C-alpha cells in the first residue's frame, strides 16, 4: 500500500504539466524516459539531439509504447476495486490526451503519402535498351511485357543509334521494369540490358492535340480516304486547306502529329490497305513504326520525296507485309551505284515485295532455299524422263503404224534383242486368229529347245526390224496407253507400255488387240534414246477393252482429264483388291491421303491394326 501513494504523486505532477503548455509537454517526453531507465534514455536522448525530425518521430512512437505499458498496468489483478476506480478515471484522461496527439501525427503522415503517390503516378520514366536496335519492336515489347509484373503502355518507342527507347508513366511501372534488366535472352542467348531513369514528359504527350483538334483532323483524314480502294492519300498533308484554316499545324514529321494520325486510322479505318505519305519531309520513321499495330494490313506504302537519309530507316517498318513500296526522291536513293544494287538493298528488308517505285520486280532465282531446290530438281528429272519417253513412243509408233517399218532401224542399238510372246488363254474363243503372232511365240515354257529359243530371240537391229516388218500392219490407239517407268539409272531406262491396237490389213482386219511392250533403252546422241531390249506380248482384247478402244479424243485438253481420272480409277480398283475394302471406301482412303498410294496403304494398315475399320467397309 505504500507503493500506491508513491505512484499517485508521480502521476499527478505529470497531469499538471500536460495541462500547462506544449513546451512543457515536449519537455515531459524527454524527462520521463530518463527517470525510468537511465542508460536507455540517455542513448535515446543523444539520438534525438542529432536528428531533430527523426527524434520527434521517435518520440511519437515512444508515447504510443508508453500508452501500451500503462494499459498493462490497468489489468493488474491485485488492484483493489476502490483504487482501480480512481486509477481508471485518471488513465482515461491520460489516454484521451495521448490519443489525440497520435491521431494528429498519423493524419499528417497519411496526407503526405497521398501527395507523394499522386506525384509518382504522374511522373514519366525513360526506358533504354542499349543494344535494342537489332531487335524487332514487336518482339522486344512483348518480351519485356511477359517478364514485367505490371502491364504498361510504351509511349514514343524509337531507335536512337543502337539503342531502343520508350517512355512510361507511373513509378510502379518504372520499378517493375527495372526488375526486367538482364532477364530477357535473345536468340543467341545473350541477356538484354534494360535501364529505367526519370524523364521529362515525352514529346508527343507535350504536344498532344485537343479533342476538338482531333475531331477536325479526323474529318480531314476521312475526306482523303477512298473506301473502295481502302487507300488514304496524305500527300503534302501539312498543306491541307481545312486544317490550315483551323490553325492546326499538322506536320507528319513530328512525332505527335504522326501519333494522332495513326490513332485516327486505328479507330476509324483499321482495314487500310494503301497509305500515301509522299512529300511530307519525313526524315525518320519512328512514329510510323506504330503502323504495324495500328494499320497492320497495309500492303502499299508511298514514302517517295521525303527526307530519309538512310535505308535503315525502313527497318522500322519492315514488319509490314508490303507488296508495293515507293521510295524515289529520298536522299538515300542516291547512294547506290545502279538500280540492281538499290533494288537488292530494298529487297533485303522486304523479301516479298512485288513492285518498287512502280516497277514490277522479278523474283531472283537465288531466293530459292535448298530444300525446295532439291524437290524441284527431282521433279524436273522425272518430268524430263517422262517427256523423253512420250516423245520416243509417239515417234516410234508413227513409223510403226504409218510408214515403212525399216525406218525404225535407227531406234535400235546394234546389239539389241527383240522377242514376241502370246499368253495362252483357254477362255479366249478367238485364239486362232492370233496365228500371225503365234508363229513367233517365244514362250519358253512351251519352247524347250535351246536352239529354237535362240532363234526366236531376234538379235541385232537389222534382224529386229526385218522381223517387225513381217508382223501385221497396225494402228495403235495412243490414248489407250498406260506407261510405267520401271527402272532408270544414268545408263539405262526401262519402261513398259500397255495399250490397244487394231489390225488394218489381212484377214484379221479390224481386230482389236491388247499388247504389253517392255523397252530397255540407253542414252544416245542429241538427247535421244536407243533400244537395247524389246519384248512384245500380244493377246486378244476383251469385249470391254474393245468397247473402249479408239473412243478418246486425240485433243490434249480433252484427253488429259479423262486420263487422270482413269488413272485414279485404276488406283481405286487396285487399292480395293489389296485392302479388301469396297470401291467407294477405297476411293475415300486414297482421297484422304492425296492420292498417295503408299501413304494410303500405311494409313489403312494402321487403322486396321487398331481395329478401327468397320466391317461394312469391306466387300
Amino acid at each position, binding site marked *: 500500500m505504500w507503493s500506491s501513494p508513491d505512484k499517485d504523486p508521480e502521476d499527478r505532477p505529470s497531469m499538471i504539466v500536460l495541462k500547462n503548455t506544449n513546451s512543457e509537454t515536449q519537455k515531459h517526453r524527454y524527462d520521463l524516459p530518463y527517470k525510468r531507465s537511465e542508460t536507455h534514455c540517455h542513448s535515446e536522448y543523444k539520438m534525438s539531439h542529432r536528428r531533430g525530425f527523426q527524434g520527434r518521430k521517435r518520440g511519437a512512437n515512444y508515447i504510443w509504447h508508453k500508452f501500451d505499458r500503462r494499459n498493462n498496468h490497468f489489468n493488474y489483478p491485485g488492484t483493489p476495486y476502490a483504487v482501480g476506480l480512481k486509477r481508471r478515471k485518471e488513465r482515461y484522461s491520460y489516454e484521451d490526451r495521448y490519443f489525440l496527439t497520435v491521431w494528429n501525427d498519423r493524419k499528417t503522415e497519411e496526407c503526405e503519402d497521398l501527395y507523394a503517390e499522386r506525384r509518382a503516378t504522374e511522373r514519366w520514366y525513360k526506358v533504354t535498351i542499349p543494344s535494342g536496335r537489332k531487335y524487332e519492336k514487336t518482339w522486344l515489347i512483348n518480351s519485356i511485357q511477359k517478364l514485367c509484373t505490371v502491364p504498361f503502355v510504351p509511349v514514343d518507342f524509337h531507335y536512337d543509334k543502337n539503342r531502343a527507347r520508350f517512355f512510361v508513366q507511373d513509378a510502379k511501372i518504372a520499378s517493375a521494369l527495372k526488375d526486367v534488366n538482364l532477364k530477357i535472352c535473345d536468340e543467341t542467348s545473350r541477356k538484354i540490358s534494360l535501364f529505367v531513369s526519370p524523364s521529362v514528359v515525352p514529346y508527343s504527350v507535350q504536344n498532344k492535340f485537343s479533342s476538338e483538334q482531333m475531331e477536325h483532323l479526323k474529318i480531314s483524314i476521312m475526306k482523303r480516304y477512298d473506301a473502295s480502294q481502302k487507300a488514304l492519300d496524305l500527300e503534302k498533308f501539312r498543306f491541307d486547306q481545312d486544317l490550315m484554316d483551323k490553325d492546326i499545324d499538322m506536320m507528319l514529321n513530328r512525332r505527335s502529329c504522326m501519333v494522332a494520325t495513326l490513332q485516327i486510322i486505328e479507330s476509324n479505318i483499321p482495314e487500310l490497305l494503301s497509305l500515301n505519305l509522299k512529300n511530307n519531309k519525313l526524315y525518320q520513321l519512328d512514329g510510323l513504326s506504330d503502323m504495324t499495330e495500328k494499320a497492320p494490313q497495309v500492303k502499299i506504302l508511298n514514302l517517295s520525296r521525303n527526307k530519309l537519309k538512310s535505308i535503315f530507316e525502313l527497318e522500322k517498318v519492315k514488319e509490314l507485309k508490303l507488296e508495293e513500296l515507293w521510295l524515289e526522291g529520298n536522299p538515300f536513293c542516291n547512294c547506290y551505284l545502279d538500280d540492281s544494287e538499290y533494288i537488292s538493298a530494298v529487297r533485303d528488308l522486304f523479301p516479298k515485295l512485288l513492285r518498287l517505285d512502280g516497277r514490277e520486280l522479278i523474283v531472283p532465282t537465288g531466293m530459292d532455299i535448298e530444300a525446295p531446290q532439291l524437290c524441284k530438281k527431282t521433279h524436273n528429272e522425272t518430268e524430263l524422263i517422262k517427256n523423253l519417253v512420250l516423245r520416243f513412243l509417239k515417234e516410234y509408233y508413227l513409223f510403226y503404224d504409218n510408214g515403212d517399218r525399216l525406218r525404225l532401224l535407227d531406234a535400235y542399238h546394234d546389239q539389241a534383242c527383240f522377242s514376241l510372246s502370246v499368253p495362252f488363254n483357254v477362255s479366249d474363243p478367238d485364239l486362232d486368229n492370233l496365228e500371225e503372232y503365234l508363229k513367233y511365240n517365244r514362250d519358253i515354257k512351251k519352247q524347250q529347245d535351246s536352239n529354237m529359243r*535362240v532363234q526366236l530371240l531376234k538379235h541385232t537391229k537389222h534382224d529386229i526390224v526385218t522381223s517387225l516388218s513381217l508382223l501385221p500392219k497396225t494402228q495403235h490407239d495412243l490414248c489407250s496407253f498406260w506407261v*510405267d517407268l520401271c*527402272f532408270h539409272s544414268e545408263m*539405262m531406262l526401262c519402261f513398259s507400255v500397255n495399250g490397244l491396237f487394231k489390225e488394218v490389213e489381212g484377214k484379221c482386219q479390224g481386230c482389236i488387240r491388247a499388247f*504389253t511392250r*517392255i523397252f530397255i533403252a540407253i542414252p544416245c546422241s542429241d538427247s535421244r534414246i536407243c533400244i537395247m*531390249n524389246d519384248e512384245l506380248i500380244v493377246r486378244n482384247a476383251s469385249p470391254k477393252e474393245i468397247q473402249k478402244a479408239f473412243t478418246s479424243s486425240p485433243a490434249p485438253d480433252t484427253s488429259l482429264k479423262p486420263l487422270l481420272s482413269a488413272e485414279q480409277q485404276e488406283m481405286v480398283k487396285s487399292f480395293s483388291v489389296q485392302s479388301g475394302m469396297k470401291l467407294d471406301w477405297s476411293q475415300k482412303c486414297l482421297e484422304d491421303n492425296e492420292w498417295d498410294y503408299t501413304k494410303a496403304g500405311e494409313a489403312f494398315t494402321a487403322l486396321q491394326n487398331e481395329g478401327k475399320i468397320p466391317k461394312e467397309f469391306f466387300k
Partner: protein
Amino acid sequence: MAMAVDFKMYVDQACRAAEEFVNIYYETMDKRRHALVRLYLDKATLIWNGNVVTGLEALANFFEMLPSSEFQINMLDCQPVHEQATQYQTTVLVVTSGVVKFDGNKQHFFNQNFLLTAQSTPNSTVWKIASDCFRFQDWASI
C-alpha cells in the same frame, strides 16, 4: 562366229535364271509371303498397277497388306540385257503372264516384268530383283 557363240551363252544363262527365278518367286508369293521381300534388292522398286513402292520396308508393308494369292503362270519369256546398259552388272529381263486370284476377289489376268541382277556369293550366283512391274490385264472387267 565368236560373237554368235557368246550370244547363245548369254541367252542360255538368261533362260536358266528365268526358269529358276519364276518357280521361286510365285511359290514364295503364294505360300511364304513373309519371305518374299528377301528376293528384292535394298533399293528395288515395285510398280503395282501404276502405283510406286520403293525400298524394302515399303515393300514388306505392301506385301503384308496384299491378300493371300494363287498365281498361275501361263507364259514366260526372258532376254539378256547388254552390259552397256547395266554397267557390267549381269542383268536379265524376265517377263511373265498368267492368271491370279486374290482372296476375296475375282480372277485377273496379269502381265509382270522383272529386272534381275546377279549377286555373286561364295557358293553360287543369286538373282535379286532390281525392278518389278505388275499390271492387271483386262482391268476393265472389275
